[in-house]
């Protein structure tokens, strides 16, 4: 098989092209938001949120049986509430954000399980209404994730210096009279929207991994935040691209393949550091 054919064969399928574009844009958005989460020590925000939306999924399913889109909006609303809750708990309770994440996450998750167990008659796994698969991306989903990705990156570019400052030294940001509280909640809401959309479009493994692994790779590789952000987004997009080709040729589940490629990049960056001493 020649090189042209290697790339052209899968690209003949519309579903593969959609999957490729969706994976790359979701990965870019996740990595951009994820860089700030990793810097703030909120690595598990994504995992927590994926569980915390369960009550929303349950209620969405209850009110609009079987409509994936309706369930998505419910999940999105719940995610935004949960992230505001995390911000509020960590502020009022004088707790670190990771502790607040833990508390809100288990509370919401238990509420979801409780709701499901009292109202019987759910057909199958509710989670399927939330977690998508990158190979099943519809044109609507693709538009959703591409728009999200563009929006996230525009917000981060527009507020870059304030977000960086509020992440590095929140007290100093306050003495500069910056709206640091607004920045905190903005970042949380941005992360919530990104995670829920990515969950729906590309599935759970891919979304959660892209939130952490490419930012970590960027942090190993780059010395300054602009470089770290660019590298994180770059590695994420490359992971999406090569991961889907790996998935195609190795007959591997796409989420797993993308995560494997991303982890490969991370190991490469780690070896590079070790090689330099």
């Amino acid at each position, binding site marked *: 098989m020649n090189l042209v054919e290697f790339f052209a064969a899968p690209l003949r399928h519309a579903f593969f092209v959609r999957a490729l574009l969706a994976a790359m844009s979701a990965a870019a958005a996740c990595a951009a938001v994820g860089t700030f989460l990793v810097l703030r020590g909120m690595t598990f925000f994504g995992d927590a949120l994926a569980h915390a939306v369960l009550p929303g999924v349950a209620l969405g399913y209850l009110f609009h049986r079987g409509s994936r889109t309706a369930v998505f909006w419910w999940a999105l609303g719940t995610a935004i509430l949960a992230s505001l809750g995390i911000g509020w708990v960590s502020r009022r309770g004088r707790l670190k954000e990771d502790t607040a994440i833990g508390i809100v996450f288990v509370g919401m998750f238990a509420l979801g399980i409780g709701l499901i167990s009292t109202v019987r008659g759910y057909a199958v796994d509710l989670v399927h209404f939330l977690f998508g698969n990158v190979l099943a991306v519809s044109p609507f989903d693709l538009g959703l994730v591409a728009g999200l990705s563009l929006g996230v990156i525009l917000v981060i570019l527009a507020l870059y210096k304030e977000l960086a400052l509020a992440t590095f*030294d929140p007290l100093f940001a306050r003495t500069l*009279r*910056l709206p640091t509280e607004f920045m905190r909640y903005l970042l949380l809401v941005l992360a919530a929207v990104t995670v829920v959309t990515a969950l729906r479009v590309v599935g759970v493994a891919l979304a959660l991994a892209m939130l952490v692994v490419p930012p970590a790779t960027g942090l190993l590789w780059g010395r300054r935040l602009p470089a770290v952000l660019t590298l994180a987004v770059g590695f994420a997009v490359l992971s999406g691209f090569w991961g889907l080709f790996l998935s195609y040729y190795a007959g591997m589940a796409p989420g797993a393949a993308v995560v494997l490629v991303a982890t490969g990049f991370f190991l490469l960056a780690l070896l590079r550091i070790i090689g330099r001493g």
Partner: protein
Amino acid sequence: MSARCPGAIHSAEAPALEVRDLAVVRNGRPALEGVSFVLEKGGNLAVVGPNGAGKTTLLSALAGLIRPSAGTIRVFGQPPGRHLCLAYLPQRPAVEWNFPATVLDVVLMGRVGQVGLLRRLGPADRAKAQEALERVGLASLARRPIRELSGGEQQRMFLARALAQEASVLLLDEPLTGLDAPAQEGILVLLGELTGEGLTVVVALHELDLVARHFSQALLLRTRPVALGAPPEVFTPAALRAAYGTALHLLAAPEGTLALGEACCPKEPR
């Protein structure tokens, strides 16, 4: 002056800092009571006292970070909440030292307030930051990642950030903690030069000997002001005992009186 200090209009004749009957209540207890002083432009003031005396509370209130429960604070005639020209350097800046940034990046953050939302930092901001770095003697380290700095270099970097911010009042909470003697001297000499250039400086300190040598005014604090004035007048055995109680050992040293108390323990209850 108003051009150097965006965010609030300065009254030309008003003193740099004017504090009247300041009181702060924290967690239901008075943390600060009846503090009054006036500091002219270019003046310096050292705030001394035992741990928990309210030094950090006073600086936070001056910075506009906490609200006084009584009394007034005026910075060039205006309330502190609207000033960008106040630079506050906390005791242990709660920053992540592994943050991917160079020294220049951090100093540039001092310009964020001036530049405003949705605008990018330009060459003029870079020039200001570079100038500030030269002023504190860190120009050669501009491109160094911040995690590689020593304690003294970290303090100088934050001072440079305050200069880049074009602050006219510097509020420093125990900036010498953890530094060796030459680094402490270096910072104090730099502060002396800056006040000579018209900056107003308020520093919370434990080292009474250094206060005596480098400051023209001292405020001895134990929730309430115990003494205020030139260091030799303030550091009398009676006043020091009133502030530090029996925890204090007074030593007659060549430089003057040394107070050996809880100076070892830098953390004040918040």
